[in-house]
Structure formats: structure tokens, C-alpha cells
């Protein structure tokens, strides 16, 4: 969702939430997703000049007891929240990147069986963009309900509706899980990090 000309991130978020409320969505508290980047410590790198891998440790308020650890294009590990303590112990192997923490905070809306989360993505002190997550609970196979989701997105995003996320293509018949959501958030955060001030919408 690009920020409209001459308007701040804050104003665009307000515009979005107002549209949702006109649609009939009910406010249901807030949500928060955060992500911290770790890179493999220099001392453990092989002599072949192999590049250090990046690992992302993420939390989602939707799953308050879990902690997600993801590698780029790699596996996703779902652990208890104690995992954070473990990361401190693994300092020798994984080092936290300085000022890499990126998070999105916002309001959670419910409209029929849809769950909509509109959040402001912040990195450090500055707002970088807007994330829109749409979840359709009754359907467990993402590709089955994509056209349905698209129609719903058009109803409040208008012409800014994004294309189908990559997750859908890879495994078109698999059951959607929390990890899939986190992978999408990770990709979204990475995009925001690379492109300054060009926000993208992530869709479940």
C-alpha cells in the first residue's frame, strides 16, 4: 500500500482503518509482529570465504507463546518463547545485528470470518511503511481462497491490490500454518529494509 502523495504514513493508516470500519469490520484490540536479525559470527565462518547466513528471530502477538526462527529461503523453526534466552547463550555463533530490529504494530479487525491487521512498520524510530495482513480462517489451503481474498482486498485497497504471494505457488495444496505467515512478514520486512519508503502489502 503506497503512501498517498502528500500524506504521512499515519494518515494513510487512518484512511485504511476508516474504510474497514465503513465496511463493517469490528475492532478487536491490537497486534504486533517484531523481527530481529542475527548473522553468523565471523569466527565460525569457514575458510572458503563462505558468506554468513542471516537468521531472523520473530515474534507474533497472535501466537504469544511461540518464537519463530527463520533463515532466508530456508527452514522455519517454531519454538517456545524461551528461545530468546537460548540465543543469548549462542552469542559465539550468532550475533545480533546492530539496530536491526524491525516491527509492525497496529489494530486487529474482524469482518465475518476475515481477520484484518493494519500495521505501521517501524525500524528504529522512523515509520517505514504499512503492512496489511488478511487472514481467512475457514479455509486451510491458501490457493483455494486466493480469488476470494482478492475480491475482499479490492473492496478496501482499491487499485493497490497486490499479486499472489510466492508462498502460494510453491506448495499449492499444503495446509497453511503460522510459519507461512511469518515467512511472508520476513519477506515484507526485507523488502522494506532494502527499498527505503516503498511499502508493500503482505497477504495471507
Amino acid at each position, binding site marked *: 500500500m503506497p503512501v498517498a502523495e502528500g500524506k504521512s504514513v499515519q494518515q494513510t493508516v487512518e484512511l485504511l482503518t476508516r474504510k474497514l470500519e465503513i465496511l463493517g469490520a469490528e475492532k478487536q484490540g491490537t497486534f504486533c509482529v517484531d523481527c530481529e536479525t542475527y548473522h553468523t559470527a565471523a569466527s565460525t565462518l569457514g575458510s572458503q570465504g563462505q558468506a554468513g547466513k542471516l537468521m531472523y528471530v520473530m515474534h507474533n502477538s497472535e501466537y504469544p507463546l511461540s518464537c519463530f526462527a527463520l533463515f532466508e529461503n530456508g527452514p522455519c523453526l517454531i519454538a517456545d518463547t524461551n528461545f530468546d534466552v537460548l540465543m543469548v547463550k549462542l552469542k559465539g555463533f550468532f550475533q545480533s545485528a546492530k539496530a536491526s530490529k524491525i516491527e509492525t504494530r497496529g489494530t486487529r479487525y474482524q469482518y465475518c470470518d476475515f481477520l484484518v491487521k493494519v500495521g505501521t512498520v517501524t525500524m528504529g524510530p522512523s515509520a517505514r511503511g504499512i503492512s496489511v495482513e488478511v487472514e481467512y480462517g475457514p479455509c486451510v489451503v491458501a490457493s*483455494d481462497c486466493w480469488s476470494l481474498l482478492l475480491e475482499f482486498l479490492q473492496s478496501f485497497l482499491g487499485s493497490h491490490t497486490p499479486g499472489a504471494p510466492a508462498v502460494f505457488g510453491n506448495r499449492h495444496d499444503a495446509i497453511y500454518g503460522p510459519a507461512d505467515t511469518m515467512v511472508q512478514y520476513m519477506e515484507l520486512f526485507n523488502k522494506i529494509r532494502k527499498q527505503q519508503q516503498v511499502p508493500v502489502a503482505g497477504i495471507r
Partner: protein
Amino acid sequence: MADVLSVGVNLEAFAQAISAIQALRSSVSRVFDCLKDGMRNKETLEGREKAFIAHFQDNLHSVNRDLNELERLSNLVGKPSENHPLHNSGLLSLDPVQDKTPLYSQLLQAYKWSNKLQYHAGLASGLLNQQSLKRSANQMGVSAKRRPKAQPTTLVLPLQYVDDVISRIDRMFPEMSIHLSRPNGTSAMLLVTLGKVLKVIVVMRSLFIDRTIVKGYNENVYTEDGKLDIWSKSSYQVFQKVTDHATTALLHYQLPQMPDVVVRSFMTWLRSYIKLFQAPCQRCGKFLQDGLPPTWRDFRTLEAFHDTCRQ
């Protein structure tokens, strides 16, 4: 009005009857007075007795006369309340204190209501009889004599037969898996899993489907003690709607003589929900209406419609 008038004509007779009653009462009290006073004021015992008997006889004659008079008058008065449509309650209209107790007008209102109710109920029962929703073999017209014969055939079927029918249906639809269990005696409960879309709990009585509940594929269908949860509904609005439609389908598919065909057609209908989230409405061409996908499936064509888009 006519009743009020006829009562007015008889008023004369009424007045006479009332005075006749008064006369009767006084003559009767005279009899008792005479009995109370006894024999007295006569010189001889015989004279006293004679005078007393004569006096007593006179009194009784006058009682008799008054009574006859009253009977004659009562025939004249007649029974005015008989021919009133509300019978004795019609006399309430004569009550002069209308404002304090509007009993009569309320009574008329109630009478009209009940008349209308009877009329409408008669119409409704006529219409309902044309489109009977009874699913068992004994229909309305069947006489009481024949009824016991028709009943046992469809309700008491061997368990093996039920199992066969269900497993045949299970094999018929590859994307549908049916798990049969009998937690409470002979009645079967089916857990139907349709693709990765939904789960349906079907409660059977012999080969009749008694109840269905539709839930999401990721929803829990068991209670805490591991039994099928046949009471709680789905937490998603979509599946609550589909549950309603499935119940409608149960009433639609009925063929008392061939219960297996009914189950098969119901399952065929249910199978069309495999595209619940993928099929747009055949009428408006959209996916969503009020946040819900097309939840209705036509009974014959199995096409998808929104609840409000179907004819």
C-alpha cells in the same frame, strides 16, 4: 340489538315474576309462622286442632297457588340468553358501567381473534398437507389400521446393511472420507471429511439422517473425552451458514421407501462444497456477499449461489 329488544318486551313478565317470587316467599314464611305459633287461643283441644289444621291448609294452598303462578310466568319470560351468539356472556353488554370494566368489548375482540386464528390455521394446515415434510413412511392419509405395517421396514434395518450403504458411498467419492462409529448403541454417527475444506458430523437413525453439523477442516470435532461433539456449532460464520443449508437439504431429500437413495443424494449434494471457496456465485458472479462466499448449492444442479441470490 335484537336481543336487547326482546329482553325489553319481556320486562313486564319479569316484573310480574319478581312480584310472584315475593308472594311465594311471604306465603312460605307464613307457613313457618303458623307452625311456630302452634295451637292456641281456643277453648277446647279439638277446636284448637281444627283451627290449626284449617289455618295450615290455607297457608299451604296459598304456597301452591303462588308457585303455580311463578311457573306460569317463568314460561312467559322464556330464555332470552339462549339465542345470543355469546350465550350468557352476551348479557355482559347490559352492564351499565362500561367504562370501568370494558369486559364486553374485550370479549368481542378475543372472539374475533380466535375466529380469525381458526380460519388461518385451517388454511395453513391445508397448504402444509400438500407439501408434507414428514420423512417417515407413514403419511397423513394412512389410516390407523395400516400404520403399524408401514413403520418397521424403514426404521429397523440390519446394522450390516447400513454399514454397506455407507461404505459404498465412501468408495463412490474419492475426495470424501467417511468414518462410521456407533458410540451410543445402534445409531450410527458419521464423520465426513471433504477434501481440505470442511468436516461434517452426521447423526443417523437407521438410514435416516437426523442431524448434521458442518465445521471447518481445522476445527476440533471431538469433545474433551474423545467423543464426537454433536452439539457445538462452528466458530466460523461460513460453516454455520452451511450447517443451516445442510439441514434444509435433509428435509428436501426424502424418499421414505428408499432411504439409501436419500443418503446418497445428500452426500452428492454435500460433495459440491469441495469448491466452497473457489466457486463464484452463478447469479452475481462475485465471491463475497456480506463477507460470506456462496454457501448455497442448488439441490438439482449443485450450482453455487449466495444465500440471497438463489431463487
